[in-house]
């Protein structure tokens, strides 16, 4: 829905606009669920498993129940419900068996949080500890214990996923394009290698929190720090077999999500406590430690890539095998697997491709959506691999990327034709190249090396991502005119920090021709009051809800024009409007104000027409298809946002310490709606990417205990970790069906940052690192020994990767 308005005439779109929610947050007045107290509210605490895998022999809750002030105690035995997003595999509280460290086994609601905690401490659980399966490659072995022996009995979304009962495979995504074996035969070079990364935590500053009131007649109200009120309601109703009309989900301000709050979390548990406590509202706030282990994380990935390359540096074929560690439950990990599977080649043309992506159950906290939805993880391997191929065949890594970049006329892995308007990865790469002065060192940089004794390295990486969503993903916006002609928009896409609401306000103001001060976006989402939206995920909000907002504005104007035409006794085509009134184009003095129309037009004698002005905009993704389960062919992508990062680092070769001197992040966003918001997403995501690149990651012992569920042991970036210089650059190739040409960029900034770091470090020192994060000691070891280092699962037989490069040059082509 590209609006054909010359940029010079746009009043709000593309212009600096403050966030509509900033003042409320700056004054401390914005309400988050964690701030809420309801009358009669009880507080909940959870008893969690200290074991990764164990049989629950008995749970004794007697002492807890007797504690004064305790109003409800629940254990898994009494809860015959299963919850699941794509594979319905999770009980509300563990029954018979615990499947990961930190899993909930019992819960208490009490008059105060202190009493609830005391009661939890009084619950005795007897376990028979079993040997856990921790590494996804171990879980694939024939004799591996099954995390879900009943996998074959679970419901799952058949159109998209393929669980393998009798194994630990929750899903196998397959993609076949061309003939990859033949391509390898024809290739001058084949290069094969494996790349890994550990699980990480999203770390929203507000932990998961929910208040649930299970009222009389099964009328349930849920206040939650959730990203997707309608999906939460849908999954909740499915689990409890309740009609959708019975359940109301309200989402006020949310203190960050990053995918971790996309689906359903603690709400069912809080709901059963409320039910058991006779309908009193119950509040559960996850502790920071629970955020790491009771709630989901980002999956670990082992990514093996084999690439055949021609003499002139063109990729002929690529075989990609992904082992996604789902942890104990499938949640979003199966869809991460699917979405990564069809994007696995990155923004490059691969004429012959084979992808096998597995989601594998293990006895660890489970994986879910996390900003980038798999793309941060696999671009780590892919973009390191691109550099390693280029080095192996003696070509400059950026030149190798450019030569293979997707462009007009290319076909994606799933058979989609890339068009000029899809966007330009080449422009992104070139902008990053010049922003960091790729390939050379400036005089100042040489002088800096001289002075510090550190080596400077540079790298440019590319990336792409499309929204991972069903082909029928839909949303709606309702726009109501208030009595004074200001307008209020309601929608259930949530804004938990991304700033989408401000961009949508700009677009509504633009389309209505109203000053933006007249436009309000209602912040609290409420499934009883707002129209449907699938989920707030996938960087699809701006495009889908933006389109719906424009349509709502147009619908409102259409309705206003119809009443105005009657009031002014003219035809609709003769009308035009400004911010205050609708007027006859050729007799502008003949007009009626929006204020006169807002709730119905009243003639001087009192007769009235119209009624309250409302505009409705509905938008559904257009032309997408399911993917063929055997070949992965089809059209899954609403839009592709291409991007690139250029990075400059300096490394001390003796210690492995490094500083990131500059990161330039470039995205083809189609059209910048709000420059500061794009920049905020670009820099915020880049630093989050640098966090997973430099220091974040789950560490387990051999029994599967999570050793670092705190900020002391699992660092996240502080202001000190910000690169010396950050730059945000936008390329604008308009998206034909995007609002004002825009496409999403919320996740992309985080993708491939780690690979840029790995490549720049290698450029500086020759160190070949194939697992992340890249801690100083890892870099030092890689410089010293040039071999990979492992300590993510202590003493794992696999190490973090089996990483000797396998490079072959075919003799017969040596002519």
């Amino acid at each position, binding site marked *: 829905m590209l609006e054909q308005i010359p940029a010079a005439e746009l009043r709000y779109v593309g212009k600096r606009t403050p*966030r509509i*929610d*900033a*003042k*409320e*947050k*700056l*004054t*401390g*007045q914005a*309400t*988050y669920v*964690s*701030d809420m*107290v309801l009358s009669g509210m009880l507080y909940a605490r959870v008893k969690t498993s200290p074991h990764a895998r164990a049989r629950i022999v008995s749970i004794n809750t007697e002492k807890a129940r007797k504690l004064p002030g305790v109003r409800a105690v629940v254990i898994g035995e009494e809860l015959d419900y299963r919850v699941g997003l794509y594979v319905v595999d999770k009980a509300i509280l563990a029954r018979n068996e615990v499947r990961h460290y930190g899993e909930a086994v019992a819960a208490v609601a009490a008059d105060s949080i*202190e009493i609830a905690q005391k009661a939890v401490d009084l619950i005795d659980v007897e376990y028979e500890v079993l040997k856990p399966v921790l590494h996804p490659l171990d879980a694939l072995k024939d004799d591996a214990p099954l995390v879900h022996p009943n996998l074959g009995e679970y419901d799952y979304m058949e159109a998209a996923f393929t669980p393998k009962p009798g194994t630990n495979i929750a899903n196998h995504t397959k993609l076949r394009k061309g003939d990859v074996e033949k391509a390898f035969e024809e290739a001058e070079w084949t290069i094969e290698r494996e790349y890994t990364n550990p699980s990480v935590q*999203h*770390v*929203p*500053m*507000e*932990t998961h929190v929910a208040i649930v009131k299970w009222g009389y007649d099964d009328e349930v109200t849920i206040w939650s720090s959730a990203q997707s009120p309608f999906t939460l309601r849908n999954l909740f109703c499915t689990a409890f077999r309740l009609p959708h009309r019975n359940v109301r989900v309200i989402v006020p*301000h*949310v*203190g*960050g*999500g990053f995918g971790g709050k996309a689906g359903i979390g603690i709400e069912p548990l809080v709901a059963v406590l409320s039910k058991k406590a006779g309908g009193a509202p119950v509040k559960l706030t996850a*502790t*920071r430690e629970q955020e790491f282990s009771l709630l989901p994380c980002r999956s670990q990935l082992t990514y093996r890539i084999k690439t055949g390359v021609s003499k002139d540096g063109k990729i002929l074929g690529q075989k990609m095998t992904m082992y996604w560690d789902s942890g104990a439950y499938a949640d979003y990990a199966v869809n991460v697997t699917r979405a990564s599977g069809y994007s696995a080649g990155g923004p490059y043309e691969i004429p012959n491709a084979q992808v096998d992506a597995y989601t594998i159950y293990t006895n660890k906290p489970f994986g879910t959506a996390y900003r980038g939805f798999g793309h941060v993880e696999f671009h780590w391997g892919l973009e390191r691999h691109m550099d390693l191929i280029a080095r192996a065949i003696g070509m400059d890594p950026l030149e190798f990327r450019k030569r293979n970049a997707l462009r007009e006329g290319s076909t994606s892995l799933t058979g989609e034709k890339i068009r000029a308007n899809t966007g330009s990865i080449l*422009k*992104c790469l070139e902008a990053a190249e010049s922003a960091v002065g790729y390939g050379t060192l400036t005089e100042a940089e040489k002088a800096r090396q001289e002075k510090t004794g550190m080596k400077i390295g540079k790298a440019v990486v590319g990336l792409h991502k499309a929204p991972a969503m069903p082909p029928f993903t839909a949303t709606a916006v309702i726009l109501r005119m208030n009595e004074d002609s200001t307008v209020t928009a309601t929608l259930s896409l949530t804004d938990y*920090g991304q*700033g989408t609401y401000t961009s949508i306000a700009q677009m509504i103001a633009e389309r209505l021709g109203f000053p933006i001060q007249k436009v309000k976006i209602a912040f609290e989402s409420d499934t009883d009051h707002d129209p449907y939206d699938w989920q707030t995920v996938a960087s699809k909000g701006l495009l889908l809800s933006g389109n719906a907002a424009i349509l709502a504005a147009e619908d409102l104007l259409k309705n206003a024009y119809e009443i105005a035409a009657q009031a002014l006794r003219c035809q609709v085509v003769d009308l035009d409007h400004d911010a205050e009134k609708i007027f006859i184009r050729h007799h502008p003095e003949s007009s009626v104000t929006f204020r006169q129309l807002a709730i119905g037009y009243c003639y001087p004698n009192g007769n009235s027409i119209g009624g309250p002005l409302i505009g409705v905009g509905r938008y559904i993704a257009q032309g997408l298809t399911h993917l063929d389960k055997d070949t992965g062919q089809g059209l899954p992508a609403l839009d592709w946002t291409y991007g690139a990062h250029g990075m400059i680092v300096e490394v001390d070769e003796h210690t492995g310490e490094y500083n990131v001197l500059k990161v330039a992040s470039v995205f083809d966003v189609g059209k*910048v709606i709000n*420059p*500061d*918001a*794009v*920049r*905020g997403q670009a*820099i*915020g*995501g*880049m*630093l*989050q990417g640098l966090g997973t690149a430099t220091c974040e990651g789950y560490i387990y012992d051999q029994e599967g205990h999570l050793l670092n569920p*705190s*900020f*002391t042991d699992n660092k*996240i*970036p*502080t*202001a*000190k970790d*910000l690169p010396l210089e950050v*730059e*945000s*650059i*936008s390329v*604008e190739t308009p998206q034909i069906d995007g609002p004002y040409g825009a496409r999403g960029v919320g996740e992309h900034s985080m993708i491939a940052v780690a690979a840029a770091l790995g490549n720049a470090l290698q450029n500086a020192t020759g160190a070949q690192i194939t697992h992340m994060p890249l801690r100083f000691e890892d870099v030092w070891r890689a410089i010293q020994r040039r071999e990979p280092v492992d300590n993510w699962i202590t003493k794992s037989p696999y190490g973090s990767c089996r990483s000797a490069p396998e490079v072959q040059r075919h003799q017969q082509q040596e002519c």
Partner: protein
Amino acid sequence: MKRVQFTINGDLYEREIHEHRTLLHVLREEIGLTGTKEGCGAGECGACTIIMNGVPINACLVLAVEADGTEIETVEGESKSGRLSPVQEAFDRHHAVQCGFCTPGMLMTIKDLLQRYPKPSREQIIEGIEGNFCRCTGYEQIIEAVLDATGQLEEKGEIKHA
């Protein structure tokens, strides 16, 4: 239970409280000033930063009884006049707020910083806010907002087009 008294943003409060309750919980749950946030409850994230007797502290690490008789400043005091403070205004201009959960603590840390260094350098700002986690913004726009609020930012961070 113990009776305590303190002044918060200029107003006197008196409460009967449990000795084991932290100042953060008393502020949020018993006094109802929920602007100050809890991000970890363990002194690690800075979300609960307030100013007590002129010194920035993590309210999650202080027992409320220890605050008896003190002067406390929280985010709610910053716009008590009905207008945003210069730093709040600069945060608004620079999109230094995303989800907003770190913002109250960040503002109090910066308030203290500016009392010590009225015109802090970029390095001093970084040093100053190092103990306040922000998972959303990547800190850059926060740093720019502080530079702007103290009259030190010539060029605002316009987005570049390739």
